[in-house]
């Protein structure tokens, strides 16, 4: 059983990371969702696996499952939902703004190469270019 859960978490993580590294927003959002599943199950399993033990106080119960990871994961599930929702809406807005759903900045804005003269002048106290003196 433990192996099934551990390997399941691993497969979920691998799939999530792979989708996370895609170029378009929607796969990235899906990847985020898969990674959330993986993380939540991983956290949950920190309380070790138990079958047929209640997290509810009961006179008949012989033993209990560990309720603490469950409580933490419960809020984690809700928060991952909030995060996924924000991500998906951001993807939507970005698509509406830019007419494409590529996650990277456009080529023109990438690896901005500032004017080296100006940058040095500002930092090193070199002669600033005319017009930048004020």
């Amino acid at each position, binding site marked *: 059983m433990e192996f099934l859960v551990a390997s399941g978490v691993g497969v979920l993580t691998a799939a999530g990371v792979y989708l996370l590294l*895609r170029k378009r927003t929607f796969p990235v959002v899906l990847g985020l969702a898969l990674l959330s599943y993986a993380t939540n199950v991983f956290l949950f399993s920190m309380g070790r696996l138990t079958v047929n033990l209640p997290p509810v106080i009961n006179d008949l119960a012989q033993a209990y499952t560990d309720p603490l990871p469950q409580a933490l994961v419960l809020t984690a599930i809700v928060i991952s939902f909030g995060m996924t*929702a924000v991500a998906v809406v951001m993807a939507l807005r970005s698509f509406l703004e830019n007419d494409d759903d590529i996650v990277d900045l456009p080529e023109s804005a990438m*690896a901005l190469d500032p004017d080296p003269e100006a940058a040095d002048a500002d930092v*090193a106290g070199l002669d600033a270019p005319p017009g930048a003196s004020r």
Partner: protein
Amino acid sequence: MSLVLIVMLPFIGAVFPPLMIRAGRNACAMTSFTVTLLAFVLLMAHAGTVFNGEVVRASWTWLPALGLNASFFVDGLGFFFAGLILGIGLLIIIYARFYLSKDDPMGTFYSYLLLFQGAMVGIVLSDNILLLVVFWELTSLSSFLLIGYWKHLPDGRRGARMALTVTAAGGLAMIAGMLILGDIAGSYDLTDILLQREAIQNSPLYLPALVLILAGCFTKSAQFPFHFWLPHAMAAPTPVSAYLHSATMVKAGIFLMARMWPVLAGTDEWFYIVATTGLLTMLIAAYIALFKDDLKGLLAFSTVSHLGLVTMLLGFGTPIAAVAAVFHILNHATFKAALFMTAGIVDHETGTRDIKRLGGLAHLMPITATLVMLAGASMAGLPLLNGFLSKEMMLHEASLTDWGGLGWPVPLLATVAACFSVAYSFRYMFHVFFGHRRDDYPRKPHDPPVGMWLPPALLVVLVVLIGLFPESVAGPLVRTVSRAVTGGEVLDYQLALWHGFTPALGMSAVAVTVGIVVLKNWRAVRAAWLAGPHPEARAMFRATISFVVDLALTITHGVHNGSLQRYLGFMVGTALLLGYATFLGSTHAPGERALLPATAVAVVGWVLLVAACLAVVTMHRQRLLALVVVGVIGLIVSIGFVYLSAPDLALTQISVEVVTVILMLLALNFLPKETPRESGRGRHVLDAALAGAAGLGVGGAAWAVLTRDFETLSGYYLEQSVPGGGGTNVVNVILVDFRGFDTFGEIIVLGIAALAIFALLDGAMFGAVGRKLAAWVPDQTRAADRHPLMLAVATRVMLPLSLLVGVFIFLRGHNVPGGGFIAGLVVAIALIVQYMASGFGWAAQRMKVDYHALIGSGVLAAALTGIGSWMAGYPFLTSTVWHFELPLLGELHVASAMFFDIGVFLVVVGATMLALANLSRIGRRAEHLLVNREPMDVDPSRPGLARSRES
């Protein structure tokens, strides 16, 4: 208390000049003067105690956990420096009043000056090295403001930046050194540290601490090779140069070396680092000073040279050398500040500081000329003036010092430096004031108003008095200060004008002779100098900084080029490396825990999960399909939770799953339905490798944990759930009670996320995006019946039932699986189904709830529950249980946590609905749909029905 006041007064006073400037320039200067005078008087009130050899302290704990205490003390050394700072400060304030022109913002100037003054006084009176470091950095910052005071001058701005870069970098090194030192000594209080000479010098960390602290001292005191910033800082107004760059700030490094002298000095490391640096600085700077044509440049390098002299004396490590150092600090402060002020006068009155354009001023400016002659002669080390005395002591000590087993290098180099020193002093005196009177001064020179010449004159009086009567004028002070520097040793020495025919006297004589010869043959010397090499420290500094900036740009743009793929790749890669490093360092033995058997059901679930994951990865380009499969994965995870004894999680997961899928479907309505193939093969392989490694790592970590036993703190929660939290569902009790504060934070985050979604979507309704939406053409064919009759009827019938289920889940939550989170999601789904079945317009008209208010009231309800415990005198969110006896229902338990859970419920409903309803609003905007007003109107666009425009 008055000690603290001495430090605080300048800071408090810094507020006033910018206000007082409205009452005029004199009022402004007077305010600053009064504040400084007050601090000075307070300091002098301690004079008697200090001269008796006692130490005055004031202290209170500030951050004891960090060893940072606001403690101050004044001993001889602190008293001496504080006196210098405040005393010369007074003169500078008067001088600046007349120096600054009407166009200069005087209020700002005095404000900066007082800030700087306070920081300096703070350095010299701090009894805590961390506090000292804070003041140290404050002087770097305030001096940056002062050097760049004339913002319109590019030289000023560059000089200020350079000074800040160098001194702040040194300051950072010093922080590290101080932390090491404090760690060795076990205390950050100077008083304690100064008692631990043995422990510190025997520590293996002594050398790193020493080097780091000295880096701070050397940069601040402009020691070689950090000397280059000081001359560029001379672009500042002359009062600033006179104050910061001769009398005070550059002495901060010297001060610290003197302060730390008892614990750091006396070792070989100390001698070779400090004395050698000092000697080289003295020599090189004196050489450069001689050939400077700018008066202030000459004085600046001369200052560097004299600071080198003091550093060298401290580096010798003998008590008598320390006395000489102290005496020279005093003498240098008097004659150099006077010389700076006279240089300012010359600049002010003739319009130039270029020695080549000056000459013959003696008759035109007799008062200034007299002051320069006396102060300059003292700098040259001529007898009867104070500079002579300390220079003699320096040469005497130098003549006794071996370097690397050799007796000659130190005395020889010291004498050479003295020759240069005499020559540049004479150059200022004779090339400016003697020679032919010229007729091309930029302005007609004459002596300045009394306010400008009086401050240097007062200093020159001191120069002469100390020179003539050293023991009676300066003796007690030097003795007190030296005792503080050397840690209380009583020394046998005599400050006197005449020591007989000593080697030092001979060296002095040589220096004066050579100096005169150099000046006589100035043209030849200058020609020789012009023919030689002139390494430019500033160019090297520039090159260094450019290199660092380029390196930073390369690294930054390499990692951070605007590609999310790359960022994420780096993040995953870094996480993998860190994880792998940890993996290597820990045990690889298999776990001992007994494992659960894998049942057939579990294996089936696992196969489904793995297959679904593979399917998502391979088919992710068909987005709808991928989304459906992700839903399947969510379902399997929920079932897994049920199977593994976590009913609450299963309920939450499955309801979240529904909401998430609806949300993604709504978004996908507008997004492209397919992902194009773009990435190359290499990219896929690399990503797959990263993903595989990540999966292996996380899976392996989970396996390692699951196969090992553990200790949990859940025992407490299980025991206390009923008596403490009033509920049997421990998971829910933890959420709303034990860890209620966490949950409180979580619902706030959820609310913020919903508001962010609202902002993103609401903004898309207007402007360019709004027009784009309005012109949007659906890329898929629509179903013929927009609101299928069966669905509409069924959902409307279901609504009250679903709400009832929500309430039921909420109410039972405290004792059996359920609770606010799950109930909120269930109710939200019940409402969303109405939107789906009957259309946004129809549902929105009937749902008159403001979701923003719902989120707000939820957070408020949770907060009020918490605050309620305050009212009852308990900490935030302490819960109570009330018992009621009701007819028919019997005894009833109501926990206060119930109200908290209501808050959770409201936030979850509000946040979910806000997000989804706004997504559907976007959809309606894009599709120009009519609102169906009739109860069972499945498609309002059908002809023949009463139409109503969208509202």
